[in-house]
């Protein structure tokens, strides 16, 4: 019983790392534009496909495919911001469409577009993703892990550590925080808010794509593979307090662990509804998220 619990805890935490990678990008976009990107799952999907296809078609090492996926995600995020998000902060509200509505319609449409476009180009088959390292299961104390899972979790942690340092220390990171706190104020201080927003979308796309690439060997990408990771990141972002990066990281761990326990002690059939139920509950009881008024802190 205890051993099972430890096993679930470890696996939950590992999934929490992937969820965090996914959700942090969504939280950053919300922090800056106050919109939910309903196409976030498709960033994940594009990352997973890029990773698998680059590794399989060009027969290169997965360690080269991984940065390719990151690049693809970043490029997609950047293009999306450039083509579709500009009206949100360039006086479009007066057209009659409200900001929130525009964002919902455009990102929802984008999600449908990307899913079906990939389905058309790559085909509806799911691909078996190559593993980063070839090891079978090994025991870490009482916990059984596969090599792929362990190494992917380590990579995810490294990326998040890198992101934390980037946000805290670098000039660009500080500019991102400034724009998130007060767009107008940051502009007055000489920060190019438009360019910073493009940067945020690129980072967000990159993180989601990386999480897709790292999970590719476990989920076997298909065009609609992004749906559940996306819903999980919505849950996490709401749970952690919209727009809060640190809240999102912590909430990801909470969700990962509680989900692992629910699928064993609760119901396996309804595990996909579990996260959603949490989302509804949190929104009802504490719309500002678990971590209070940190909504504006990045």
């Amino acid at each position, binding site marked *: 019983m205890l051993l099972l619990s430890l096993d679930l805890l470890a696996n939950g935490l590992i999934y929490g790392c992937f969820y965090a990678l996914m959700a942090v990008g969504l939280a950053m976009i919300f922090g800056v534009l106050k919109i939910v990107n309903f196409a976030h799952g498709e960033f994940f999907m594009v990352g997973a496909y890029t990773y698998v296809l680059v590794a399989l078609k060009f027969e290169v090492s997965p360690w080269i495919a991984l940065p390719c996926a990151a690049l693809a995600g970043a490029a997609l995020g950047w293009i999306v911001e450039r083509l579709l998000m500009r009206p949100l902060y360039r006086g479009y509200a007066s057209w009659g469409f409200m900001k929130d509505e525009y964002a919902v319609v455009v990102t929802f449409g984008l999600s449908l577009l990307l899913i079906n476009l990939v389905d*058309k180009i790559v085909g509806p088959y799911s691909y078996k993703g190559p593993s980063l390292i070839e090891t079978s299961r090994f025991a870490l104390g009482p916990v059984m892990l596969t090599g792929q899972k362990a190494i992917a979790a380590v990579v995810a942690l490294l990326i998040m550590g890198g992101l934390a340092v980037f946000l805290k220390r670098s000039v660009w990171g500080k500019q991102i925080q400034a724009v998130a706190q007060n767009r107008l104020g940051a502009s007055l201080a000489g920060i190019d808010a438009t360019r910073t927003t493009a940067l945020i979308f690129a980072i967000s796309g990159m993180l989601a794509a990386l999480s897709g690439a790292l999970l590719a060997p476990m989920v076997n990408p298909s065009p609609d593979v992004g749906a559940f990771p996306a819903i999980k990141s919505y849950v996490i972002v709401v749970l952690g307090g919209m727009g809060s990066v640190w809240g999102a990281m912590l909430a990801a761990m909470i969700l990962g662990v509680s989900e692992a326990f629910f699928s064993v002690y609760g119901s396996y059939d309804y595990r996909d509804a579990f996260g959603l139920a949490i989302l509804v509950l949190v929104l*009802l009881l504490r719309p500002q998220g678990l971590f209070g008024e940190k909504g504006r802190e990045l």
Partner: protein
Amino acid sequence: MIGPGPLWRDRLAFDMRIAVLVCVVLAVLPLVVQGPYAQGIILVSVYFAILSLAWNALAGYTGQFSLAPAAFAMLGGYTTALLDFYLKVPLFIGIPAAIISTALFGLVLGKLVLRLSGPYLSLTTLAFAEIARVVVGNSHEFTRGDQGMHVATLTDSRLGYYYIFLAALVVVLVLLYAMLRSKLGRFMTAVRDDPVGAESRGINVVRVKMIVFCISCALCGLAGSLYGTFSQLVSPELGLLQQTGLVLSMVVIGGMASLTGSIVGALLVYLGSEWLRSFGNWQVIVFALLVILFARYVPGGLWGLMLDRLKGKRA
């Protein structure tokens, strides 16, 4: 697009007149379009027109972006199907029961979510829609899961069914028109345009949202229930997010906050998607692209474009 002031009332009356004209065209359409397949297609597009009207009342006129219209259609369909299957309830009770049950679902969900705004509301309704679909699809003993359930049918004549759908569309249209003409209609647009201002003028914003939400859900339930009896099968596929996407694209392409826009949008998008069906899933690609382009460059939709043309001025 939806200008304030005295013009607005005229615009609504004009909108209604054109919408009625479209319904008249729809009524004579089966005389021109022969064959069960073609008639089936226009029938389904009328189903989508009802959903679009229901969603537009909520999103276009009241500014509440729910992502659950397809889920409510599914719930309506299942209400009728379950009553028919377990209790052998005749359809003339089963269909009104679907309206009542979806209105109640709407009441409960609305109570919970309508204090939220913007993206939070969309997120919660999205979550609700997916939960409903997962639960219905997994409750194998009760709903037979993904296999779907058989439903009794009202009539075997496809043409008869077409006129039943059309009658439902006209009822919905008249109901929405009466709603928009009444005080509630002006409250709705006030809530959409400036919730804080509306609240400060003594409008109970949550209650207005609540009423419109329940009505919108009930109309989706009616549409879903009718559709279930027509196809004699309800399945979780009725509630797919893609269906919501289709409704959304119909309204955005036709025109937000327009009766005619919802109906014409539904007809064009559905007929277009049937035409594109031979090209595989190019249909969704084309419509997703159209939604994005319309939202980005033509926020008034086709209806807005036409009004601009008539008035000879830019929005």
